[in-house]
């Protein structure tokens, strides 16, 4: 549930008393009536165009998060021989997921279907035109909504690539993640945001609050990442060989692009340019900042030095955690969510990963899986109808409103996203492995993705 639809009615409602008064005036000429109607139409068009402008910008910002945000963030963290291969994984999603989304992904996610998946109603985007779809976003063309959602569908599988960095075949990755977007992402998106979805805040069987994709994007990608990392096994030489980032500079740039792009991710999920977008924007920024500080402090205490990698990872962790909460909470709870996420995710990455020894190379699970889970639960705690009356005017949303059972609903959403991610990912990994083979041959892994998969070198320093 993203927007408070009552806000749409505010502007014309302001005019309604005077219009009614005018209409009741005896002998109001038809010309005046016509003028008033025309003006009302213009007002509505102007508001819709305002919403559409912000939504198109938001869609562009979210795409920016993948390319080059995530491409650079991940690219800088891997060894030099794998830079192009890593960036290509994100870029491949930009191409492949777009095509699949247009053909059937959007239909499976947002078409009418059952509680778990949409149907074939919008195959090849049939019926998705420039008129709004009132089920989802009544003030913007449905194509705007569709393309905005597409950018989410693109980045989600791209996030998973962090877990299997430096060791998966390009062909296998392309097939695996393309199928993943249809088998895991679209159903999850349908359950949380689709009409009739099981977890939809608006009338779902288990109404859960996920403003911009804590479960749909971050838990699914993070948990699927963990499953993939465990299935594929560790990189050759891990953990005895140190494999530090070859360019923290690129990662830094990528992280900052992610932060800025996230304003489109969260504030754009208001599906309009009104005050709710402002709330989400502020919460996003506050959480990122607090989490960066939180992680940095935790690391300073733990290691004695604050690292750049820690600071930027902290910011991303905060952004992940605030994602489900961004349009539901007040600003200072958003700060708190960020602070907690920074500390918690740093703990996941420093301690838990080392303790269990899995090679989640770029911490997709530690940041997205763990951060998304935390954020989804904290959303249940801090959501308030004073920011977003998602369940109806005057109806409490989260625990601080008194609605403590929302925490259970959030937990249910978390459990379902974990479940579908684990099962869906395992099935796909197994199938793709048998048909194509997932992992690079050892000599290819030694040579690096760039040369073995793409016949290219990222840097020609002698050129």
């Amino acid at each position, binding site marked *: 549930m993203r927007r408070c639809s009552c806000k749409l009615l505010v502007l014309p409602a302001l005019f309604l008393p005077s219009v009614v008064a005018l209409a009741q005036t005896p002998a109001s000429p038809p010309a005046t009536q016509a003028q008033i109607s025309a003006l009302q139409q213009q007002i509505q068009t102007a508001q819709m165009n305002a919403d559409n402008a912000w939504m198109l910008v938001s869609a562009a910002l979210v795409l920016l998060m993948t390319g080059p945000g995530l491409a650079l963030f991940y690219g800088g963290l891997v060894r030099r021989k794998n830079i192009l291969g890593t960036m290509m994984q994100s870029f491949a999603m930009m191409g492949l997921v777009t095509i699949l989304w247009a053909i059937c992904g959007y239909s499976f996610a947002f078409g009418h279907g059952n509680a778990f998946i949409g149907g074939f109603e919008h195959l090849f985007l049939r019926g998705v035109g420039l008129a709004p779809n009132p089920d989802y976003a009544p003030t913007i063309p449905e194509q705007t909504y569709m393309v905005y959602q597409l950018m989410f569908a693109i980045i989600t599988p791209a996030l998973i690539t962090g877990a299997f960095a430096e060791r998966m075949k390009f062909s296998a990755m392309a097939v695996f993640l393309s199928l993943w977007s249809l088998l895991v992402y679209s159903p999850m998106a349908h359950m949380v945001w689709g009409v009739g979805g099981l977890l939809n805040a608006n009338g779902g069987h288990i109404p859960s609050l996920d403003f911009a994709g804590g479960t749909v994007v971050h838990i699914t990608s993070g948990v699927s990442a963990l499953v993939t990392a465990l299935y594929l096994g560790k990189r050759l030489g891990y953990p005895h060989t*140190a*494999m530090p980032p070859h360019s923290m500079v690129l990662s830094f740039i990528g992280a900052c692009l992610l932060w800025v792009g996230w304003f489109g991710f969260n504030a754009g999920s208001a599906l309009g340019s009104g005050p709710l977008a402002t709330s989400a924007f502020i919460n996003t920024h506050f959480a990122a900042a607090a989490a960066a500080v939180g992680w940095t402090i935790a690391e300073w205490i*733990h*290691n004695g030095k604050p690292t750049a990698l820690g600071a930027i990872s902290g910011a991303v962790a905060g952004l992940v955690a605030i994602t489900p909460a961004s349009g539901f909470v007040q600003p200072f709870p958003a700060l708190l969510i960020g602070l907690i996420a920074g500390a918690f995710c740093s703990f996941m*990455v420093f301690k838990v*990963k*080392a303790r269990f020894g899995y090679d989640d190379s770029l911490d997709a699970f530690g940041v997205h899986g763990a951060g998304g889970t935390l954020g989804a639960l904290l959303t249940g705690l801090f959501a308030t109808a004073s920011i977003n009356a998602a369940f109806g005017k005057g109806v409490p949303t989260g625990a601080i409103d008194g609605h403590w059972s929302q925490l259970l609903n959030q937990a249910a959403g978390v459990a379902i996203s974990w479940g579908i991610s684990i099962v869906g990912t395992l099935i796909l990994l197994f199938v793709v492995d048998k048909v194509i083979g997932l992992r690079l041959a050892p000599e290819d892994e030694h040579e690096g993705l760039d040369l073995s998969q793409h016949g290219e070198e990222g840097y020609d320093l002698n050129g």
Partner: protein
Amino acid sequence: MLKIEAVLQPSKLDAVKDALLEAGIEGMTILEARGHGRQKGHTEFYRGREYTVDLLPKVKIELVVTDDRKETAIQAIMGAARTGRIGDGKIFVSKIDEAIRIRNDERGESAL
């Protein structure tokens, strides 16, 4: 003719180059290298784990000089590069069989 190879701290490169030029030695080849002798590496952090980087950045200078200039060159290098601490580097001297100027096929000491 002798080849002098000196492995140095990168921060000493400019001083050594200047000292050699002042001593009248102009031809040299500079390479970026990594390595260590008895010098310990430094620790870096990655994801909360400490690890030691023990292949340290170094600079290698190679010169070929006439036999009579060997000590001049060595003293120039040592004077500029020495700090007294572990990690200052090393100098190796070896014999050169032939030297040729590519431009005009000049051979022997006059090619240096």
